[in-house]
């Protein structure tokens, strides 16, 4: 267990956000080539490859975890702050985010003289405008933004926000979509077009976008963190197939590549001597049981299924053992890690069978259920786990069904699913756990409701210090793993590889990259 440090909520001016991010993330670099040393060189175009695309470039439409395509928005917007798992805040455009009343009222202090790339000032009024916009009905950030019930512009660089209820995890939101602030002038004048040609205060300005294919950015000469960005331009291309992406990278067609799947390819890349970042946050690729639908509404079935599962075996099958699996939702170096709070994998099969038999005796058998998945790497994981269950337990028919993303989404909306995956990751678990596991929450995929767990989460949200938070989460976990409303397929890692020619790139949050500091040794 890591040492429990007192959480620092005061903003502290610190140098080199990069080092902090690495320490917090717990993911080491490949150990091989570290990239160029010496002073950052200006100039050149950074070429990056990614797997997936987002709906567009407007943060109000970015509802999936930031890592999926957050790196496409980050160059345009930057974030207000960066925060690590220990709660240490690195100032970016905001220099301080503080509370004096235990998390109900927050004061955000902005840096002086920051301008959006269209020349208009990035002031508290702009911040207020954006947060009001985030709370509008068609925004995807309403659940985050609507916590804010009132805002006051104290002075041009200070905004005060009052929340509906105390939330000591508020700063974490500011390195996500609502921490990406756009120019009010641009938003108002561009209307519809804003989401494909946004204006922010980040290191780069969008030059051209071909949806589903490529993004080009140019250096923002008015960037607040001069002399950054070092590069003149940034190009992102999308190659969905990880093996192809890696081949392209190895052939020297890119300086940087990033993606969440294809662990075996990433391992191979690392073995070839390339530096690979593997940021690990809590949680991962979670798989949810719909606790309001038979047969997974019965805890016996849920426990029995999970007891028959073996993540390492699934890893061997689906990703040639290259992915990271765990029976604990927290990584070992996390302050919230509790060795007793295990997901009950690899349980006693006789006991598991007894649970099933008891269910069947009462409700009839066989126990039939379906796990929905999209095609691709994920399907292999699903097949592996289902195979284990079918082989180890009698009277259970665990089916697999391949569906389109649209259908999967719909089955979340109309609660027609029984077993379905949806990633559950973040830098701060308290925020996430509240969103995904609290009674009645919109994003509570499992429709899970346990008053005890709820109370523990609410307590954690109100806790001003680390110790109380950890205690609260520990209580929540005890109850949680009796119920098993979800399990962890594998850790969700946004792998990133950098070439020997590229320096200054590190990861923070769930896998966002410090592209502002990136530089090419030979531009």
């Amino acid at each position, binding site marked *: 267990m890591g040492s429990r440090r007192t959480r620092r909520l005061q903003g502290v001016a610190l140098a080199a956000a990069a080092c902090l991010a690495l320490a917090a993330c717990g993911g080491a670099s490949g150990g091989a080539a570290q990239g160029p040393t010496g002073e950052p060189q200006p100039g050149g175009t950074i070429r990056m490859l990614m797997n997936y695309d987002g709906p567009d470039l407007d943060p109000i439409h970015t509802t999936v975890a930031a890592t999926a395509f957050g790196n496409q928005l980050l160059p345009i917007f930057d974030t207000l702050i960066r925060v690590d798992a220990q709660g240490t805040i690195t100032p970016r455009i905001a220099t301080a985010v503080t509370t004096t009343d235990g998390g109900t009222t927050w004061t955000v202090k902005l840096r002086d003289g920051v301008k959006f790339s269209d020349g208009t000032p990035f002031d508290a009024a702009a911040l207020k405008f954006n947060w009001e916009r985030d709370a509008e009905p068609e925004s995807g950030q309403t659940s985050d933004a609507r916590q804010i019930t009132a805002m006051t512009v104290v002075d041009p660089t200070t905004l005060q926000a009052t929340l509906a209820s105390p939330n000591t995890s508020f700063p974490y939101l500011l390195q996500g979509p609502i921490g990406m602030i756009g120019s009010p002038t641009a938003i108002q004048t561009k209307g519809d077009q804003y989401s494909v040609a946004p204006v922010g205060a980040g290191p780069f300005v969008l030059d051209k976008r071909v949806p589903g294919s490529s993004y080009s950015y140019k250096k923002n000469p008015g960037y607040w963190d001069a002399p950054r960005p070092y590069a003149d331009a940034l190009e992102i291309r999308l190659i969905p197939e990880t093996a192809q992406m890696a081949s392209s990278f190895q052939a020297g067609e890119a300086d940087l590549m990033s993606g969440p799947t294809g662990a075996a390819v990433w391992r191979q890349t690392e073995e070839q001597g390339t530096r690979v970042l593997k940021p690990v946050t809590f949680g991962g690729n979670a798989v949810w049981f719909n606790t309001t639908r038979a047969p997974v509404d019965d805890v016996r079935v849920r426990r029995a299924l999970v007891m028959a599962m073996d993540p390492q075996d699934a890893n061997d099958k*689906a990703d*040639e053992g290259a992915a990271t699996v765990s029976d604990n939702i927290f990584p070992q170096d996390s302050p919230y890690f509790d060795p007793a709070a295990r997901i009950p994998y690899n349980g006693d099969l006789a006991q598991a069978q007894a649970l099933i038999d008891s269910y069947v005796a009462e409700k009839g058998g066989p126990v039939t259920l379906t796990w929905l998945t999209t095609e691709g790497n994920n399907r292999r994981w699903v097949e592996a786990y289902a195979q284990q269950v079918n082989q180890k337990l009698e009277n259970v028919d665990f089916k697999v069904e391949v569906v389109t993303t649209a259908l999967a989404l719909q089955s979340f909306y109309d609660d027609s699913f029984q077993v379905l995956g949806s990633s559950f990751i973040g830098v701060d678990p308290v925020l996430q756990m509240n969103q995904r596991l609290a009674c009645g929450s919109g994003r509570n995929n499992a429709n899970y409701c346990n008053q005890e767990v709820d109370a523990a989460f609410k307590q954690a949200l109100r806790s001003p210090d680390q110790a109380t938070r950890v205690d609260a989460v520990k209580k929540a976990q005890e109850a949680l793993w009796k119920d098993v409303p979800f399990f962890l397929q594998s850790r969700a890692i946004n792998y990133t590889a950098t070439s020997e020619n590229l320096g200054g790139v590190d990861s923070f949050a769930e896998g966002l990259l410090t592209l502002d500091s990136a530089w090419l040794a030979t531009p």
Partner: protein
Amino acid sequence: MTTVEQEAVAAADTELPRSRRGPAFLVWIAVAWLALLVLAALFAPLLPLADPAQDVGGPRQPPFASLAEPLGTDGLGRSVLSRLVYGARASLQVGVLAILVGLLLGGLIGLLAGYFRKAVDFVIGVVTDALLAFPGLVLLLAIGAVLGPGLPTVIIGLAALSLPMYVRMTRANTLRFTEREFVQAARLTGAPASRIITREILPNVIPPLLAYSVVVMASLITAEAAISYLGIGIMPPTPSWGAMIADGQFELARNPQLVFVPAVVLALTVFAFSVVGDWGRARLDVGGAKV
């Protein structure tokens, strides 16, 4: 032709390399392979094969490493041999049935269009063009939405997609022969259309269709896996050759046998079909449209 020319033709005839039937044993091997496949697929549960869905020895066991699993295991530890045999069921059904529908139905429509021309041709042409311009993806998804996922949906969907191609091909070849004098002559003598079509046109139109069908069959078998992401096909762990080939792509660099074993089986089957088809064509000895 003049008498002189006729004599020259008769003399030259023997020198022109005629299409040979090839070594007979090749045809026998082809027939044997196909028979073996069909029988194995039909009687799979009775054969001493492992359960095609179960992990029988750990993932990615190489072929020839053990007696129990001569072809090794796949990424989920399942017997490749067993999955090939069970997979033949799905793949052969898809390949053969979809082709049959396309061939018979499409062929008939194409014949009518090419023979009767004018209004019939125009209407059929418009519908065929519309079907071809229509994004196949949408058609498959719509069929899938109505019928639900499963093998019949895939067969119907793929048959619907290949239908217009057969119509086109048959029409083209019918066109070519309808205008010939001998057909015109037959029409003039009052021979019924059905007789003209079956006697004169059909024998000339069928051979390229068969050759085409063999290739289309293979494409359909691989296509069945390619459309799996649409969620309308056969669901895992039910095996099919297309799915085995598609699955293996994830580890092509490290375990290429996972792709090549099913691919070679498919290739051999295609080869067998085409050898048999060729022999059939040579037997019928069509192609002599005497002027």
